[in-house]
């Protein structure tokens, strides 16, 4: 148990911060309850998927600056396909959009592998390419979404064998998040491929000498990043009911959550849980700043400062553990 705690101290630390923030929120706003939790989870969804996309790419030793643009492409694709179509058609749209996302990510990966241009440069260029593609698909906010897709994110879960007193505290959006992430992440962590992703992130030379196909692994990591970005695009369409071609503020937020979540930007180290908790923390800080009616020009300074302090404190703790 102690070993487990020590190994995952960063994630537990984040969880502790999240819990304290929830208590703090309840203190400053005694009405904070089921509605608040649901709103928080729904707000966190697009950020969480953007972060998951960034996590896999960063662990593989890369970085993807085009995540928000890929979310825009997939969001407008979903909105255009579902607009005016039957409710059932959405069952076809979702796999198509996920496939589109994976393809966009794979294209990023292929370009990096073939051109040998640094990840940051290729994906910066692709940020503009995907942004343009999104505008070509839909030149202004529009399109539509199936009712049941929108309903997936609204309200608490309904389970007959559990009393309402329990289920009302579990928003549907939370289940959507957990299931979507686990379906991809758990098999990945348990597979050789998952190990290869960590390996090429640590040292691509060592990985290559151990027989890992570095190029193929890298492309696949970017493709999975694209898949998560597509999930982000889908939840954007589901929560707003439309598609918007202008990318939202998800790129920098994803990098922030990755760093705060304990993933090393150099690659090879980190998990998914930490960054997802970090996303919730960052959203809850935003909620608290609104509840406290803090001057909007100061809120971004507060958000940034908190991040720097947490990351610095973490670094300090890590270095002290090493010297012990």
């Amino acid at each position, binding site marked *: 148990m102690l070993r487990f705690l020590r190994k995952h101290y960063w994630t537990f630390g984040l969880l502790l911060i999240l819990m304290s923030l929830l208590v703090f929120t309840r203190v400053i706003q005694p009405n904070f309850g089921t509605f608040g939790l649901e*709103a928080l989870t729904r707000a966190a969804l697009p950020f969480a998927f953007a972060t998951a996309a960034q996590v896999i790419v960063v662990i593989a030793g890369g970085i993807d600056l085009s995540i928000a643009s890929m979310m825009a492409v997939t969001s407008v694709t979903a909105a255009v396909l579902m607009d005016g179509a039957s409710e059932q058609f959405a069952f076809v749209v979702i796999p198509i959009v996920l496939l589109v996302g994976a393809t966009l990510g794979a294209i990023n990966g292929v370009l990096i592998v073939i051109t040998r241009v640094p990840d940051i440069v290729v994906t910066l260029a692709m940020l503009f390419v995907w942004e343009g593609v999104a505008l070509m698909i839909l030149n202004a906010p529009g399109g539509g979404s199936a009712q049941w897709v929108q309903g997936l994110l609204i309200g608490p879960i309904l389970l007959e064998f559990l009393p309402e007193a329990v289920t009302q505290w579990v928003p549907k959006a939370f289940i959507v998040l957990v299931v979507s992430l686990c379906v991809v992440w758990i098999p990945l962590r348990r597979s050789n491929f998952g190990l290869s992703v960590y390996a090429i992130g640590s040292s691509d030379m060592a990985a290559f000498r151990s027989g890992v196909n570095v190029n193929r692994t890298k492309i696949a990591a970017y493709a999975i990043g694209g898949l998560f970005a597509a999930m982000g695009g889908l939840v954007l369409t589901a*929560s707003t009911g439309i598609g918007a071609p202008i990318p939202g503020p998800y790129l920098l937020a994803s990098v922030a959550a990755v760093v705060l979540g304990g993933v090393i930007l150099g690659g090879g180290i980190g998990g998914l849980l930490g960054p997802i908790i970090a996303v919730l923390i960052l959203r809850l800080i935003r909620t608290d700043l609104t509840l406290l009616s803090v001057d909007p020009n100061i809120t971004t300074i507060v958000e940034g400062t908190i991040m720097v302090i947490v990351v610095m404190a973490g670094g300090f703790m890590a270095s002290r553990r090493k010297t012990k």
Partner: protein
Amino acid sequence: MKKTLLKGALLGAMTLGFMSTAMAADYTIGISNTVQGNGWREEMVCAMKAEALASGKVKSLNIAHRNTDAAGQIEDINNLIQAGVDAIVVNPSNPDGIKSALKAATDKGIVVVAVDQMVNEESAYVLSNNQEQYAYLGAKWLFEQIDGKGSVVYMRGAAGASADDDRDKGFKKAMAEFPDVSIALEVFTGWQQDQGKQQILDYISTGIPFDGVWTSGIDNVIVDAFVESDTPLVPIVGADNAGFVGQLNSVEGLTGAAVTNPGSVGGAGVALAIRLLDGEKPADRVVLVDPELWENATDAGKANLQSAADPSLDPEWPVSIMIPNWTNYTKEQIIACKGPGE
């Protein structure tokens, strides 16, 4: 429900030690805006603060003001609902994307007023600038100035923005009425001063002649670009920004028109929210503020421009800082940009 929310707000306020002494000032109003650092939007927020202060009925404003998308605005509105505000005045990111959050607010008895742009949520009130008419008025005037033939530079706003899309409809409507007018260049300024100026300088340097410029409100820097590069001026259409209105009055050889697009609609939105909280019901759910056109080609137009000019304002601020019959604040109050309790 509203009572418990109000109680919550009061508790929250007490925790912060912001307890107001004036009992007449009772309302808490939430503001949600998704573009930060743009002159027009800053004026809008200042008008909201000034109106809240001038009304004497608002205890505090809770302002969520940042650069974000519709999903982020839903988050902000949900946060404002939890903060226990009595009314929310919102400049919507787009007409459809935030419907669910607006519905959640009105379901809890919160008064919702959308300003500047339309929202397609039946329970919300709308005080919107007529963007299609804005573009149509200016473009039609411009095409008449060049005698219905020639080419114009079409400097749009931000690609993918609803307001830009509406304005494009108005511009195209005017184009359809003047078949001999063509577009020399179509660019998106992103409503950024520096970007717009660079774009027109780039085009001027190609040497391709053109007969006029229509801008979506990035205007004074376009005149600057002509003057600085010693290029003969062509008719230019912009918005009623203080800098551009000043240029229309003073720059030698400049023919142009300013189309009004008041940022003070934000103040009017707060005024409407207060009236609704007081129990007054407006006749219509949607009120469109129609734009006016002030040009310097005629004496009557010149007089309009002279009276509208206000060099004391920031050049990026629209000169129409008040809306008659709606706003109650003074010019000093909007320039001070202070809300209740600040």
